[in-house]
């Protein structure tokens, strides 16, 4: 069938302007989007840069936005993306810098962020060829995340990365999960693992939009994994001090008054002895006051004692 490919072009060597090139390609009905890109490169334009390796959906190297939806080119059939018309648009994934055309900078995604999760184990001592005894049942949680492609699709959907590129992102978090939940990481090692995922720009910066769940080609549900790690963190005591203060202030406020006291929350999160941190809040407070947006003081509300009992019950049941 005759299809039209509209492919994003960007070459920093030629000024880095981004544009689209259009190609007509004749392909069999059951061809994949990758088949078309390869045909264009082989027969029409051998400067077209894109990545692909295994061509069977195993390696995760060929993530591209096809008709604006990020997918693997090697497992996406042209028939499935031309139902609304014969045009196939290919653009690089979002949130990761472009090197050329459809090729993006995996250094920034894979290594800088994944490596921050310290995804390895340190042997305790000299190598001793003995085996760990691990019940199969304890592997269920980690088994799935072990199959992460490191393809970048989850980060592509992230709502935080466009405003804060330093956020570690769902991809790195899934890698963190794989070790936090590893049945061999117990005791002090488990606490260290939690501290790693709780570092600034880590676990607590996710805004739970759940986009990553829908993006993951392996169905690993990265957003849910982040939330599961938060639960584990609650149980072990939150390691990130600022987040712990935020958490405690929130609960205490609701427990004591039945309200969330936002003024107190902001100050207690910074830390009442953290003068530098508090000073940084002053301009915001001034702006809020001049515009009449300063939250008011909350008196203890009727029924606050019942709210307190609900919270205490919930805390006991954890």
């Amino acid at each position: 069938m005759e299809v039209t490919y509209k492919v994003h072009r960007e070459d920093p060597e030629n000024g880095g302007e981004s544009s689209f090139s259009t190609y007509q390609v004749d392909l069999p009905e059951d061809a994949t989007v990758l088949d078309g890109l390869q045909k264009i490169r082989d027969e029409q334009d051998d400067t077209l840069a894109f990545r692909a390796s295994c061509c069977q959906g195993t390696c995760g190297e060929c993530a591209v936005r096809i008709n604006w939806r990020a997918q693997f080119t090697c497992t996406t059939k042209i028939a499935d993306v031309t139902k609304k018309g014969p045009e196939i648009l290919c653009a690089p994934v979002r949130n990761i810098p472009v090197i050329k055309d459809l090729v993006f900078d995996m250094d920034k995604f894979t290594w800088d962020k994944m490596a921050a999760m310290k995804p390895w184990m340190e042997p305790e001592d000299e190598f001793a060829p003995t085996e760990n005894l691990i019940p199969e049942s304890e592997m269920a949680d980690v088994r799935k995340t072990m199959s992460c492609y490191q393809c970048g699709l989850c980060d592509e959907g992230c709502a935080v990365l466009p405003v804060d590129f330093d956020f570690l992102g769902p991809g790195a978090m899934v890698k963190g999960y794989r070790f936090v939940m590893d049945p061999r990481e117990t005791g002090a090692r488990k606490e260290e693992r939690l501290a790693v995922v709780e570092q600034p720009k880590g676990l607590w910066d996710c805004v739970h939009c759940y986009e990553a769940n829908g993006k993951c080609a392996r169905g690993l549900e990265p957003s849910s994994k982040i939330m599961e790690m938060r639960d584990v963190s609650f149980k072990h005591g939150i390691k990130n001090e600022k987040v712990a203060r935020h958490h405690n202030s929130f609960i205490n406020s609701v427990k004591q008054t039945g309200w969330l006291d936002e003024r107190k929350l902001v100050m207690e999160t910074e830390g009442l002895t953290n003068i530098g941190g508090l000073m940084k809040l002053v301009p915001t407070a001034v702006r809020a006051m001049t515009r009449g947006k300063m939250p008011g003081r909350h008196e203890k509300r009727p029924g606050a004692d019942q709210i307190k009992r609900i919270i205490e019950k919930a805390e006991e049941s954890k």
Partner: protein
Amino acid sequence: MAGESYETHDYDVVVVGAGGAGLRAGIEAHDKGCKTAIICKSLLGKAHTVMAEGGIAAAMGNVWPEDNWKVHFRDTMRGGKLLNNWRMAQIHAQQAPDRVLELEEWGALFDRTDEGLILQRDFGGHRYARLAHVGDRTGLEMIRTLQQRAVALGIDVFMECNIQHLLMNDGRVTGAIGYWRESGELIVFNCKAVVLATGGSGKCWQVTSNSWEYSGDGMGMAMEVGADLIDMEKVQFHPTGMVWPPSVRGILVTEGVRGDGGTLLNSEGERFMFNYISDFFKAETADNETEADAWYQDKKNNRRTPDLLPRDEVARAINAEVKAGRGTEHGGVYLDIANRRDAEYIMRRLPSMYHQFKELADVDITKEAMEVGPTCHYIMGGVRVDADTSATTVEGLYAAGEVAGGLHGANRLGGNSLSDLLVFGRIAGGSAADYALGAAAAAAPDAAEVDRLTTLMLEPFTDRGEENPYAIHMDLQRTMHNLVGIIRTESEMLKAMEEIAVYKERAARVKVEGGRRFNPGWHLALDLRCLLGVAEAATLSALECKESRGGHTRDDYPDPDSKYGSVNVVTRKQNGTISVSLEPLPEMPEELRKIVEEQV
């Protein structure tokens, strides 16, 4: 173009390739105190190892306490039709279990037995369930563990950096030159030792399970500096590749399907493998369906199903069935697990296969049979190495993994590749480090030689013709598929030699468009040199080897010939031409010969 600029890096050991063997070699060289670089032409963690499915063969005895290195050694030698380097097979069988345990120390987590030990699965040619695995994506867990270990140790990794030539000084290898794919800038490494871990050359063939990286770089570069290659005609056609639809033809279907109970059927619904049990395997193979099926549960009292004969035997059988008109609509045979195991079991044991068929062929393997046929999968031959040190015949050059030859003889057993990478990756990295620590500093690369090579690498940008590199590559793949494929004959191979000569001339007239930044046409134009070199070496070896054995089948010499039963076919490049000779295999000690010949 002389005087083209390039960046220079100094290391003790440079490892080319970052699959299982390269990463394991780099880790070992680093651990021995060497300043080490790992260079990979694709992204870190995307090397071919990531695609390995079934598992790592290691006689740990977790499922069958009867298993030990001697049984693994025997299976490997018999699977390789005794053409293996016996010492490599022995070291491999002895050291594989420790390499598996070591991976778990670094973070890997394998599937478990009921007792919580590492689970092992059945595979073709292995007497006992022996493959340590993680579902059907063992390679992914293995390469992640190794790449993360390399990052943890702070080893320098050069990603998407393509090495093109080895640099020599005073008869020893002292460096390498290549280019960054991203920027197109040139890069030179000065070092005391180089480890080749570049994998195979399956991209010489049309129907292949191999990805674009497999262009024979290591074999080609080793040949250029005068290293010996052995047994280049021994090519493994994996019996089960996908055959339909055309765009996925050749993609691998793991042997684990048969290991977990799947069986091969022809278009008449017959389990045809019972008709193809060679005398060599008669004593240990079931000759009826009842015994074959019982073997999965009780290996002591039953013989193995012929569905799990070594790969060369099964591939030839499928080829013969299709030729006899008993193939499927698309020219394969059926592989059925849907009627033999329940859906839950299939989904748990073979999740990747389920998704692969669902996504690419719209086939639900829990309900329907798959269509499969042979696909070029692995090169048993490769750079000749010393068994104990992985040293090649050129000083300062080491090789491990698929790029090296010898361990697998005439045919590789499934699962023996991942263990090969770990065992010999470690040995090669260690030996290269020992050599580097004792060697004098490498002399600076000869400026004239570097100029010559940079000019060579940039030639495709000059005005020298109109040839398209992709067209040449496709023509080469078709030639190798049609004329040097699974069944070979002299007249066809002579024709292949003529065609390869034409492709070499055409390759010299390749012109690429555009600039040097991430330019795929240029990358392939450069890869053609090794692709063509390896194709030529394989064809010449195949012409010389006038018999059929393992991964080399001749229509004109259909039987094994004792003349070739104890020799390597050696290819060597001297003064620009490739010579072929037969050289005797090392003699196996008596006690090992007894193990191999023992009837079970």
